[in-house]
């Protein structure tokens, strides 16, 4: 693996060579304001966090980095009292604490700035700042609106924001709403501020303002935990960087000790070879052809070609627009421009798409994939009722035979085909969804996160199935946030970032580093 140098000074590179990772931070002796020690959290059967450490010091901006699903959000929620860790402990100023509610975390001066501001749109700005703690006066004591507005205005001024404290929050922009949340944190004299991907929906100017405010807070001694994706932002802002991967702690060191390449390696460095390797076949005739597909504000200029027997991976971060592209290709979502053709036939509606041989296995199987209360047999027969029925009358025998046939091919583990998917594991539910769409005998299959939340065994089986289907001539578009999965299975990888295709890589040239770079860094848009 070749290290790619970020634009850094020669002195810094010099330092890197013999630098000992400085786990103790700038002033090694200081006790961390907030510390997580060996924190673990399991949801259902999924290990979200596995003995993770994190320590935040006063007056530092500490970036928390990791791929989707690395455990950043879980750790954040534990730190602000939404979840409780299964094992491990939290410490504030060195003393063990137990946050059983968000209120308990607030009592320890921990505030969080949510990705999507968590405010009360119907209430005015001042009230959002002081909700639950409104100043009172008089006898009998009642809320002092005037004082509340004056204090809110003062706090907002400290943040350099000119906002009317009497304005309704529903009328504010996203950036303004974030400032209101931050004013709330200030008013609580928060010593720890957790900022969860705040820049996702901000303009560059607003991002600059936000960073100025964050640096100001840091210089006043606030410990800031910044969760983000964009590497250039991390380098511009962070003093220290902690990286998580697969729910585990990777490392924690001064930002100066990292460059872009070393960070990406820390985030993705998994044993890619351990995964299922594909039997590659020579792609056949072109099947799906997407040209200039666009939806205003969501994605633009997406071109896509899928040939028989080919698997194309669609990689990118959550929110890059991958699922939206898939939905537009299938015809569920509106398209503003562009065409979709399957073997020369123009597709506009999902009905046309299904008739032409396109199948779409959605991301959220609980909501969009299976009817969890209906028997497996009914689920499998759902898209092809016309073929199962006889002059409009369902024939349960044929439903069951069909479900049994596909259940065997997919090694579905269920009592019988009358069982409801609600009682099945995630992996087996996913097999029901797959069976349902495979029963339509598609020529092109779109899979959106086919292995999210399934156990390793089921994952290997699904990979094997995808490989078999491609070998038998099916064209597959594989959307996945699981980078090793995409790299192992795909013949070509398209990378999306903020609604654009930023890289199109042949499987030989698709390394985790190149994909992550295209998914996170500013890059030239390329034609697919």
């Amino acid at each position: 693996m070749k290290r790619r140098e970020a634009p850094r000074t020669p002195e810094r590179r010099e330092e890197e060579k013999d630098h000992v990772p400085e786990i103790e931070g700038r002033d090694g002796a200081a006790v961390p304001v907030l510390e997580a020690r060996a924190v673990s959290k399991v949801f259902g059967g999924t290990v979200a966090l596995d003995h993770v450490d994190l320590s935040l010091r006063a007056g530092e901006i500490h970036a928390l980095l990791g791929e989707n699903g690395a455990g950043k959000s879980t750790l954040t929620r534990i730190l602000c009292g939404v979840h409780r860790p299964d094992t491990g402990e939290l410490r504030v100023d060195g003393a063990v604490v137990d946050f059983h509610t968000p209120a308990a975390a607030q009592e320890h001066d921990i505030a969080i700035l949510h990705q999507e501001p968590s405010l009360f749109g119907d209430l005015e700005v001042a009230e959002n700042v002081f909700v639950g703690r409104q100043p009172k006066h008089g006898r009998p004591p009642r809320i002092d609106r005037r004082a509340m507005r004056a204090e809110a205005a003062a706090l907002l001024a400290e943040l350099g924001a000119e906002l009317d404290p009497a304005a309704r929050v529903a009328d504010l922009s996203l950036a303004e709403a974030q400032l209101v949340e931050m004013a709330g944190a200030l008013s609580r004299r928060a010593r720890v501020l957790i900022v969860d991907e705040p820049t996702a929906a901000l303009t560059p100017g607003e991002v600059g303002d936000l960073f100025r405010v964050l640096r100001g807070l840091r210089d006043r001694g606030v410990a800031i935990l910044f969760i983000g994706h964009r590497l250039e932002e991390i380098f511009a802002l962070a003093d220290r960087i902690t990286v998580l991967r697969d729910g585990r702690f990777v490392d924690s060191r001064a930002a100066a000790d990292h460059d872009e390449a070393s960070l990406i390696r820390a985030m993705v460095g998994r044993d890619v070879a351990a995964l299922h390797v594909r039997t590659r076949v020579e792609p056949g005739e072109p099947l799906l052809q997407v040209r200039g597909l666009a939806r205003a504000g969501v994605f633009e200029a997406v071109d896509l070609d899928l040939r028989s027997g080919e698997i194309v991976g669609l990689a990118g971060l959550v929110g890059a627009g991958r699922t939206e592209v898939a939905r537009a290709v299938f015809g569920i979502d509106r398209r503003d421009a562009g065409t979709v053709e399957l073997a020369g036939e123009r597709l506009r509606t999902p009905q046309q798409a299904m008739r032409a041989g396109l199948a779409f296995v959605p991301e959220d199987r609980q909501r969009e994939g299976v009817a969890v209360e209906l028997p497996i047999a009914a689920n499998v027969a759902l898209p092809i009722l016309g073929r199962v029925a006889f002059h409009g009358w369902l024939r349960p025998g044929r439903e069951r035979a069909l479900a049994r046939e596909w259940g065997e091919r997919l090694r579905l583990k269920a009592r019988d085909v009358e069982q409801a998917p609600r009682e099945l594991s995630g992996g087996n539910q996913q097999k029901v969804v797959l069976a349902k769409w495979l029963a339509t005998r598609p020529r092109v299959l779109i899979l959106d996160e086919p292995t999210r939340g399934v156990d390793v065994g089921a994952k290997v089986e699904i990979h094997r199935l995808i490989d078999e289907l491609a070998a038998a001539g099916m064209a597959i578009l594989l959307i996945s946030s699981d980078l090793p999965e995409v790299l192992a299975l795909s013949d070509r990888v398209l990378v999306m970032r903020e609604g654009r295709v930023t890289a199109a890589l042949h499987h030989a040239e698709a390394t985790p580093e190149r994909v992550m770079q295209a998914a996170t860094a500013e890059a030239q848009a390329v034609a697919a």
Partner: protein
Amino acid sequence: MSAVARLARVRELALAGFIALLVIVIAAQNGDFLSGSNLRSILLDITLIAALASAQLMVMLTRNFDLSIGSTVGLSAVTVGMICQQHGALPTPLAYLVAVAVGLVVGLVNGFAIARLRIPSIIFTLGMLSVVRGAVYLVADGGQVNSEDVPAGMTDLATGGPFGIPPLVLIALAVALAAFAFLRWTRSGRNVYAVGSNPDAARLHGLPVSRTVVLVFALSGAVAGLAGALYLSRFGFAQITAGSGLELTVIAAVVVGGASIFGGSGSIAGTLLGCLLLGVIGNGFAVLGVSQYWQDAAYGALILLAVIADARLRAVRRPARSAAAPKEATA
């Protein structure tokens, strides 16, 4: 003041203007409409509705509904009446206290079930509507409360009073004023708005979400109990059907008064104007000799108008946070 806040304020003014216009039109047709006795009759007609609507507003601010209030009014009226029938007339203050206590019990059952068991309020209180009505049948035991059972002290409240305003009306006004002060000047009152505006954010801010929901249902029940006593004072008797259907009129008044059915927004002033509008229409149509069916149609049209206005107002807001659409009616 922001644009939407101004619009909301204008909305209350618009409502007041519409009422004034309606009064002028009706009075022009029939001068008796503005006579002292007719105005007093309008006030008496909306007394019950106004007290109940003030409490229902609080429930609706938290994204909930209380459909059981009509039955609770009946239960409280019949319970007080039957006690007087069998044990002799209660002193008026004690009669009112018993009425409030009966309603409070129903309200607490509603509140705890909805907040703790997380049952959607519209379904739970729909069930309670029938359960409580059943209790009225049991309490009445085949009989009813006749005029001679109701203490004179109670019925006196419907007549006389300062400036010809009956004490009954003043009681309802006191309820509305108390609700106004609570919602405006106390933290618990502001929490009512916050919980309805964004329940998830309320939880993240550490606000007592469940306690707030229990509180508004307890208040709604207590006020419904009080309204049962007001019912006895006003009408001087109570059948087992007393109060049935009131819940729908009350919700109509709150909605017409500009409160959002999605919670988080609404005012006592608007709610009282909503009650007044329904009262003026009901009375005015009677004075003009218009059929009862037209009155129902007018109520219906007003509700639709109010809900459409609410939806349009919400659509004006930016999508970022107005997307706090109704998820569930529970706490």
